[in-house]
C-alpha cells in the first residue's frame, strides 16, 4: 500500500514513496531545472527505486502551498491527472505543516516560514503533544523581522524552519536567546507524506510514522 508524495512548492523538487509509514524512496533536488522538466522523470525514477508500479499505488499526497505560484500548479496538475488516470485518492498537505513534520520534538514551538516576497513570510506555529502536531498560531503573512522579534516573547524554546531561514535569517539576523534554526529548511515530499499519514488526514493507508529525521538529528519521541 504505497503512497506517492509530490512537493513542488519551492525551488526544491521532491518526490517520495512510502509504504506503511516506511519511506521507501525519495528524490529531492535543488538544481537549476524547472519543476516542469524534472517532475515526471523524478516520479518515474522514484517509483523504480522503490520497486513500486504506478498501478500499485494506494494514494497521492501533494503539497498545496503556500509556495511558488507556478511550482504549485505544476505539482497539482500532475498529481490530479495521475490520481484521475489511476483512480487514486488524493490528499493535499499544507507546505508549512509538512515542514513541521520533519521536527517531531515535544516541548518546542516549531515555527514554519515560507517566503512571501518583499521581506515577508507565510508563518504558522506548532507544538507536538503526545505524538500529534497541533497548530498554535494559524497561518498568516508577516514581516520576517517581526516574526523573529515575536519569537523572543515565546516562553518555550523556538525552532525556526522553512526556506526563509536559509534565505533571510541564517547569517543575516541576530537571533534572540532560545530561538534556534532547524537543519534542512526546505519542504520536501517526505514531509508531505507525514502529513498524509497523520490520523484524520489520511483517506487511505499508510498510518504511522515516516518522519524526516533521516539525518539522525531528531530521534523520534
Amino acid at each position, binding site marked *: 500500500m504505497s503512497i506517492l508524495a509530490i512537493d513542488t512548492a519551492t525551488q526544491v523538487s521532491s518526490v517520495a514513496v512510502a509504504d506503511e509509514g516506511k519511506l521507501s524512496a525519495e528524490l529531492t533536488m535543488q538544481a537549476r531545472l524547472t519543476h*516542469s522538466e524534472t517532475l515526471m522523470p523524478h516520479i*518515474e525514477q522514484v517509483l523504480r527505486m522503490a520497486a513500486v508500479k504506478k498501478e500499485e499505488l494506494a494514494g497521492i499526497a501533494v503539497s498545496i502551498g503556500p509556495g511558488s*505560484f*507556478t511550482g504549485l*500548479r505544476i505539482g497539482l*496538475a*500532475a498529481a*490530479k491527472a*495521475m490520481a484521475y*488516470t489511476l483512480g487514486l485518492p488524493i490528499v493535499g498537505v499544507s507546505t508549512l505543516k509538512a515542514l513541521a513534520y520533519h521536527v517531531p520534538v515535544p516541548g518546542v514551538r516549531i515555527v514554519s516560514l515560507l517566503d512571501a516576497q518583499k521581506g515577508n513570510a507565510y508563518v504558522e506555529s506548532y507544538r507536538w503533544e503526545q505524538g500529534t502536531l497541533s497548530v498554535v498560531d494559524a497561518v498568516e503573512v508577516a514581516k520576517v523581522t517581526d516574526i523573529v522579534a515575536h519569537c523572543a516573547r515565546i516562553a518555550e524554546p523556538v525552532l525556526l524552519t522553512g526556506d526563509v531561514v536559509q534565505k533571510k535569517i541564517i547569517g543575516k539576523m541576530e537571533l534572540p536567546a532560545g530561538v534556534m534554526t532547524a537543519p534542512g529548511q526546505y519542504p520536501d515530499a517526505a514531509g508531505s507524506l507525514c502529513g498524509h499519514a497523520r490520523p484524520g488526514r489520511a483517506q487511505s493507508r499508510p498510518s504511522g510514522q515516516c518522519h524526516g529525521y533521516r539525518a539522525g538529528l531528531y530521534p523520534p519521541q
Partner: protein
Amino acid sequence: MEKNQEEILTLAIESSCDETSAAVLRGGREVLANIISTQIPVHQKFGGVVPEIASRKHIVNIMPVIDECIRTAGVSLKDIDQVAVTYGPGLVGALLVGVSAAKSLAFSLGVPLIGVNHLEGHIFANFLSTPKLEPPFMALVVSGGHTALVDVRGYNHFKMMGQTRDDAAGEAFDKIARVMGLPYPGGPRIDALAKEGNPLAIDFPQALTEKGNFEFSFSGLKSAVLNYINSEKMKGHELNKPDIAASFQHSVIEVLVGKAFQAVKEAGRDTLVLAGGVAANSGLESRLREEAAKRGVNFSYPSKILCTGQCRHDRLPRLLSGSGRPLQRPVSQCSAGAWS
C-alpha cells in the same frame, strides 16, 4: 498489436490562453468530443487576460474538462493511444497546467506524449478544410494572439519567417473596435463596417514595409487610429466609422498581403495558406485571393467554422492532430525541435 493509423485515439489538451479545452480524436480527422471551458467572462472585467487568474482557472477546470471529454467521446481512458498538448507559444503559467497534466496522463496511461506548437494547430486547420493540401507551403497565421509567416516545409518541418514585434493584428482590431464603441469581439464588426467605407479615405501608416523584412508591427497603426479618433472627437466632428474601419483594415491588409507574397516568392513556394482567427476577415481573404490569382499562386483558407471571431483556441484540440501526420513526432520534453 499495432493499431491501424485510422483507429488511433488521441486525447488532446490545450490551455495556452483563456480557454481550457480537451478533445478526443480518432485517426486524426474524426472528432469524437471537444469540451471547452472558457474564462472569457472572467477576463472581460479586466479588459484582457490576467495570467495569474488564467492559471488558477485552468487548474480548477482541467480535470473536469478532460473527464467530460472522455465521457462524451464514449471511450475508456485505457483506450487512449496518445496524449497531445499545446506547449507554446502562449501564457507560460497557463501552458504549464496543460503540459503538466498531459505529461502525467501520458505517464500514467503508459502512452506517448506529443507536444504541438500552437501555431501548428492553427495551420493544420487547413488540412481539415482542404484535404488535398500538402507541404511545402507558406502559411500566414493571423489571430487574436499571433501574426506570423511560417514556411511549412514538411509535416514536421517549419521555418518561422517572421512574426509580430508587438501587437497581434487581432489585438489591434479589438482595441479599435472598443474605442469606436463596437461590441466584443471587434474583428467581424470592423470587417462588416469596412465594406461600407472608403479604404483610402484616411492615410494610416504601414510599418516595416521594407523588402525582406517579414516581421510585423501593429502598435504604431493602432496608436495612429486612436489618435485620429481622439482628434476628430476634439474637433467635434461626427466619426465616419465606415471610413475609419475601411482605412484601418486597408493598412493591416496591405501589410499582410505584401509580406505574405514576398515570403512566398522568397521561399519559392506555389501555395499560400491563411490560418488563425482573423482568417475569417472577408476583406483579407478576398485581397489574398485576388493577389494570388494575379500571381498564379494557389490559395487556401480554413472554413469559417474553424476560424470565427477571435483566436478560437477552443477549436485547437480538434486541430492538434491535424492530418494525423504531425503527431508522429514524440516530444517527451516538449521542445520546439522541428522549428528552425
